[in-house]
């Protein structure tokens, strides 16, 4: 039985960092110089400062990353002018898989031919000195968006570049993104990332961490998402992170979105406090629909507007936006800028009531909350000498099971489909340790579905294409 504890903090981090930074592409980074640089970076580049001053509306964050410095610079300017509160830096997939040589070669080729051979910004190939220049006149936080199981060097270069928000985590950047990267190693590597964020933080200006709650964005039950988010918040807190955002993706049901947000916020606070991490500030981030998008632009725009309203109703600290071209591929910068404007318009025009509730939402909250507590209790009871080991074992035992994860360590036994109002229901919990009572309630709620007698795979296909 291993509970989250500050005693799990990596010791000897200086020595470990020296090892990581001895990589040829990390050699220009000196921890003291990085701290000095962070002290000179404008305060508005730190998420905590922006969140503290955000006013009634959620902050807006678009997506985007290009291989060339010039293109990324222009994107940054364009998004900033369009009203983005957070500026994304999306990393290419070779860098995500630690294939820095390939990323560098393709960067050179992109530079020579003026064409993009990478699907994002190869941060490690560009290095921190050049990347600092991207943001020399920027007074907004930059968010590192990637999907990297081993992000040790990447996080070092990002922080050295003055990037104060690192997205990801051992579970959320492994299970949806990788089929074979060992989860136990991933857990250990993210301890490093969390620790490095912590040692580069000051009390007022912490390096902020954010988890990626949408996971596979395909019928993941809210209780599974919330358990993963709480675990990653606890793992980060163990390493001394003091500013952490949990997140989730639009579920497809307004009722379930409101219930999920409330339970996620409350239980993250509850578990952080319970294990002595009361000083950790937690935030809530909402992702606009992450599943298959309508190809018709009018429908896409309607979906984007509706999820903007939901982000306001749930009191999200930040909304990560999609574009009307989502179904067509990687959107152009103008389209991304347009999306920021649309969302800003909706947020400004329709300020929500402070709280929205109903008997259905209350029931949903009770059910999700009870399931999360059962899952967390079961994980805490797994034997092991450290919390991360219990988390690793939880996947082997199927206590945590993320639908549609390609990863070999994921059980893939849990079955989920939508009920009559579009909420995601657990049709078969498999080894996920929710109570018999909750499992029965989930199944009963499924009866409201019109095509319930149809085969499960047909129901799932309908559900996946919900918004199309």
């Amino acid at each position, binding site marked *: 039985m291993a509970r989250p504890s500050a005693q799990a903090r990596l010791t000897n981090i200086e020595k470990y960092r020296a090892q990581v930074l001895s990589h040829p592409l990390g050699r220009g980074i000196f921890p003291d110089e990085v701290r000095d640089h962070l002290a000179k970076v404008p305060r508005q580049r730190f998420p905590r400062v922006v969140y503290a001053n955000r006013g009634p509306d959620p902050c807006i964050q678009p997506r985007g990353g290009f291989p060339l410095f010039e293109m990324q610079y222009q994107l940054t300017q364009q998004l900033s002018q369009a009203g983005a509160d957070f500026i994304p830096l999306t990393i290419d997939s070779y860098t995500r898989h630690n294939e820095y040589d390939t990323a560098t070669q393709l960067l050179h080729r992109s530079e020579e031919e003026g064409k993009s051979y990478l699907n994002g910004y190869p941060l490690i190939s560009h290095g921190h000195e050049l990347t600092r220049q991207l943001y020399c006149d920027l007074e907004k936080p930059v968010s590192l968006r990637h999907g990297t199981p081993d992000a040790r060097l990447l996080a070092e270069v990002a922080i050295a570049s003055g990037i104060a928000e690192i997205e990801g985590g051992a579970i959320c950047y492994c299970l949806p993104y990788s089929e074979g990267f060992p989860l136990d190693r991933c857990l250990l590597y993210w301890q490093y990332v969390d620790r490095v964020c912590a040692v580069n933080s000051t009390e007022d200006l912490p390096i902020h961490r954010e988890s990626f709650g949408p996971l596979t964005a395909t019928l993941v039950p809210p209780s599974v998402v919330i358990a993963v988010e709480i675990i990653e918040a606890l793992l980060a807190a163990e390493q001394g992170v003091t500013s952490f955002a949990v997140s989730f993706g639009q579920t497809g049901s307004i009722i379930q979105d409101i219930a999920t947000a409330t339970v996620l916020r409350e239980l993250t606070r509850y578990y952080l406090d319970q294990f002595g991490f009361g000083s950790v500030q937690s935030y809530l981030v909402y992702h606009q629909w992450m599943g298959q998008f309508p190809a018709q632009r009018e429908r896409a725009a309607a979906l984007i507007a509706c999820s903007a309203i939901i982000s306001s109703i749930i009191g999200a600290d930040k909304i990560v936006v999609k574009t009307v071209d989502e179904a067509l591929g990687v959107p152009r910068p103008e389209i991304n800028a347009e999306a920021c404007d649309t969302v800003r318009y909706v947020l400004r025009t329709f300020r929500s009531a402070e709280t929205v509730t109903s008997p259905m939402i209350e029931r949903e909250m009770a059910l999700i909350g009870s399931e999360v507590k059962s899952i967390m209790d079961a994980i805490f009871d797994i034997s092991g000498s450290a919390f991360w080991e219990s988390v690793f074992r939880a996947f082997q035992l199927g206590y945590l099971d993320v639908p549609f994860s390609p990863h*070999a360590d994921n059980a893939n036994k849990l079955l989920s489909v939508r009920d009559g109002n579009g909420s995601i229901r657990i049709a078969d919990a498999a080894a996920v340790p929710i109570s018999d009572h909750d499992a029965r309630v989930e199944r009963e709620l499924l009866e409201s579905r019109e095509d319930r007698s149809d085969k499960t795979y047909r129901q799932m296909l309908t559900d996946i294409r919900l918004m199309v």
Partner: protein
Amino acid sequence: MTSVCHGRVVIGVIGDDIHIVGNRIMQLALEESGFQVFNLRTRNRPEEFYQAALEVNADAVFVSSLNGEGEHWCADFRSLFREIGLGHVLLYVGGNIVVGKRPKEEVARLFKQFGFDRVYHQEPDISVAIADLQEDLKHGAAQRAGKAHEH
């Protein structure tokens, strides 16, 4: 789910293709139709399919491709199976199996030349393939062995 076992099917996505959603749905659809499924999941080479077919004594192999790599990897499929004495195993392929827009008939002809028994290029309804598989398996192994020699 029915408990009747209609046959043993190896499924998987070929090439450096990590599209997992269709693969999971396929597994569930086959299981719900009574098949025993051996799922190789994503990113497979041809040898992984025939090795698995040999290991589990498969009746059929269902190859899928979403990113269009299918054409590149599937060319020698039937001969590879025949070489290890598995010429009788039913070979199905489906998904988005070639790169670019090409007529369905042309794609079907191409993959039949590769030795596939059934080809489902951009076929949205899985149940078509399942009905075909049930039908094809009724004919028995001996007949299929004879049919395989025709290719």
